[in-house]
């Protein structure tokens, strides 16, 4: 029993050690592949530690290892350490697993990179794994927040991996800024919570919540601020705009950070703090509504994208919306379950997409086509991922998605429930649209879309072939895992916290099959031509293409709001603050100029002055009083 915390601690520290080695031992980092292998070995160790920690957990028992960090007069302000229980160790396994697999995959994907860049990449990867595990195991809000910022930093660094290209640098900065906007709210929320309760510690807060402490009443504003952080990190409307642009980073990074782990940090945090959110049903309601709206909203945008990674990015936003909706309905464990399964199959989809991009040399789905025959292995695993995401029975996503639908219905969120069902339909449609366009038919528009990064030379769909072994093996591992999870759930269905009506299961399968049927009718069979469909939905399609003008709106707000404010502040600074100082200094200068004249430079004049002064002093002393 005692071991679970220790295993978790070792799992957490392993990537930290490899990061320190890679960052401090410069020749090692610049050597490239040895650095990569070091990082991979350490992350394999982390994975082993995570699995051992999970196996050693006892139900309903949390094991804590704490070090006092900031001592104050009466006790300790905050500590660092690990809080290992069944949930955090499960999440730990997901993080360690995906991070390990992605690091192996990157060996193949980034094989053409120069050694120093590769070393830098693996140093960032190690730092990310370390920070993310610290976040997962955090026993209090302070450590959570610090690691939260660290993963944000890693996200920024890894999106900007090919920083020489201006649009990549811009995407990295955008991701950093948008999430930072939410993080400010998060920080305010944490501090407000502390000023109410006097503690950052999850266990102490949990005891307060159990005991019905007065300190936890009327926390609406506090929890809304904390939710803001989660909304920024987990790309909830209207903060979702950074995630599609983050796809400029290398595909393995997208799989790890922007699909499986970091973006789910917000969901995980809400899950972790769900006992606090339960005190504020009005905030939970808002979380549910925003989540469901995000799910639907992002799904519509995913339908019109031509870039395979962007389709997956919007799909991630949409699935994060699902998780948030379940949490908003009050059943956080349903959201957490979907987080875990989604982490597996979305990483699979991204890595599959990476294999395709690696082979074709383009992100554009219309430049692909007919890949099913040329890349059979990739096709099979990508199909497994797609079916999981769509929610077909016996695949990983089915149970968790149905759980979420049931949770929102049971939580009384009828309208969000309807939005989620519609989003599920769209999910099936857009995923199979990608599958049909990319894997069947012929390449429609070669080189029409944005080219992928320049490292791959002249590939095209006609000469595509399956990726090298390091990549393919990873794909198979994730694919089989997605299948295994699905079948495992089918054999022993996890017990729900709520009672969902029986018609939800057929409904979920129905909309998924309906979406697939529509995609089949439109793309391979051409019963309905895509052009006709686009014309009928021209307004919506146009709006979705333009991302519902949200990016433009933010740019406008930035131009008018921030720049306008800075202009006013600049005017005040220039003319009022500087003005007062300028007047003062001008007066001083004039006075100095006048006084200067009395200095004649003639020694005798000064003697006159001295003599006159002495005379005056004598008169003053002798003056009759």
């Amino acid at each position, binding site marked *: 029993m005692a071991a679970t915390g220790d295993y978790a601690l070792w799992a957490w520290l392993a990537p930290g050690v490899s990061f320190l080695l890679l960052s401090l031992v410069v020749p090692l980092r610049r050597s490239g592949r040895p650095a990569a292998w070091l990082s991979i070995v350490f992350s394999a160790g982390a994975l082993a530690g995570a699995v051992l920690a999970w196996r050693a957990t006892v139900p309903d028992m949390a094991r804590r290892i704490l070090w006092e960090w900031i001592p104050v007069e009466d006790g300790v302000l905050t500590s660092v350490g690990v809080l290992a229980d069944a949930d955090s160790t499960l999440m730990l396994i997901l993080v360690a697993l995906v991070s390990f697999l992605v690091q192996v995959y990157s060996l193949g994907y980034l094989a053409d990179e120069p050694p120093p860049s590769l070393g830098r990449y693996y140093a960032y990867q190690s730092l990310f794994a370390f920070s993310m595990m610290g976040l997962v195991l955090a026993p209090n809000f302070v450590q959570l927040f610090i690691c939260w910022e660290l993963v944000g930093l890693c996200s920024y660094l890894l999106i900007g991996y090919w920083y020489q290209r201006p649009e990549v640098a811009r995407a990295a900065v955008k991701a950093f800024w948008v999430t930072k906007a939410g993080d400010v709210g998060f920080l305010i929320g944490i501090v407000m919570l502390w000023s109410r309760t006097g503690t950052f510690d999850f266990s102490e807060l949990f005891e307060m919540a159990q005991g019905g402490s007065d300190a936890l009443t009327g926390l609406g504003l506090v929890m809304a601020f904390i939710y803001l952080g989660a909304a920024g990190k987990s790309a909830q409307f209207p903060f979702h705009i950074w995630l599609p642009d983050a796809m400029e980073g290398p595909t393995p990074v997208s799989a790890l950070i922007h699909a499986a782990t970091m973006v789910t940090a917000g969901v995980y945090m809400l899950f972790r703090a769900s006992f606090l959110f339960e005190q504020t049903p009005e905030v939970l309601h808002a979380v549910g509504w925003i989540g469901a709206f995000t799910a639907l909203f992002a799904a519509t945008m995913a339908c019109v994208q031509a870039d395979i990674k962007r389709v997956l990015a919007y799909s991630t936003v949409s699935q994060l919306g699902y998780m948030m909706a379940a949490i908003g309905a009050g059943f956080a464990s349903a959201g957490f379950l979907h987080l875990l399964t989604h982490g597996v199959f979305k990483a699979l989809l991204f890595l599959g997409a990476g294999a395709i991009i690696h082979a074709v040399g383009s992100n554009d789905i219309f430049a692909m086509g007919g890949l099913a025959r040329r890349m059979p292995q990739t096709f099979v695993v990508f199909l497994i991922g797609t079916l999981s995401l769509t929610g077909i029975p016996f695949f990983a996503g089915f149970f968790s998605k149905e759980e979420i639908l049931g949770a929102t219905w049971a939580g009384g969120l009828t309208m969000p429930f309807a939005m989620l069902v519609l989003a599920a339909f769209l999910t099936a449609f857009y995923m199979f649209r990608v599958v049909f366009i990319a894997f069947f038919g012929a390449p429609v528009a070669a080189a029409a879309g944005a080219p992928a990064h320049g490292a791959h030379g002249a590939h095209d769909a006609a000469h595509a072939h399956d990726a090298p072994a390091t990549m393919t093996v990873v794909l198979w591992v994730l694919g089989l895992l997605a299948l295994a999870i699905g079948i495992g759930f089918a054999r022993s269905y996890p017990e729900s916290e709520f009672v969902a009506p029986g018609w939800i299961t057929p409904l979920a399968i129905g909309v998924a099959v309906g979406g697939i049927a529509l995609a089949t009718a439109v793309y391979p069979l051409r019963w309905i031509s895509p052009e006709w469909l686009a014309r009928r939905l021209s307004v919506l399609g146009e709006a979705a293409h333009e991302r519902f003008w949200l990016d433009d709106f933010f740019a406008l707000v930035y131009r008018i709001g921030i720049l306008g404010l800075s202009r006013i502040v600049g005017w005040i600074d220039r003319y009022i603050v500087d003005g007062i100082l300028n007047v003062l200094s001008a007066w001083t200068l004039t006075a100095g100029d006048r006084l200067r004249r*009395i*200095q*004649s430079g003639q*020694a005798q004049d000064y003697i006159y002055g001295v003599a006159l002064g002495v005379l005056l002093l004598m008169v003053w002393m002798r003056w009759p009083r």
Partner: protein
Amino acid sequence: MTLQAYLTLAAMLFCIGLFGVMTRRNTIGILLGIELMLNAVNINLVAFARYHGDVSGMVFTVFTICITVAEVALGLALVILIYRIRRTAVADHLDLLKG
């Protein structure tokens, strides 16, 4: 001779010296004026020493004379240097410190 006579002499001497310092155009003349003022002080010191019957005033006078000698030597050296550099020893022309 009373103390007052000595003091009057000293005051007159001091005033003559001060007048010289303030009005002479030549730097050497100014130095001479300073000498007169210092000697007026010496007369004062000696007069009071005699009046109080205390020798320390006289001792101080000896010190003053020594220092005066050094001061004059230094002053003359400066005047010579200034004359060499600026080709003049007239005080009105030495106004480099004019503001």
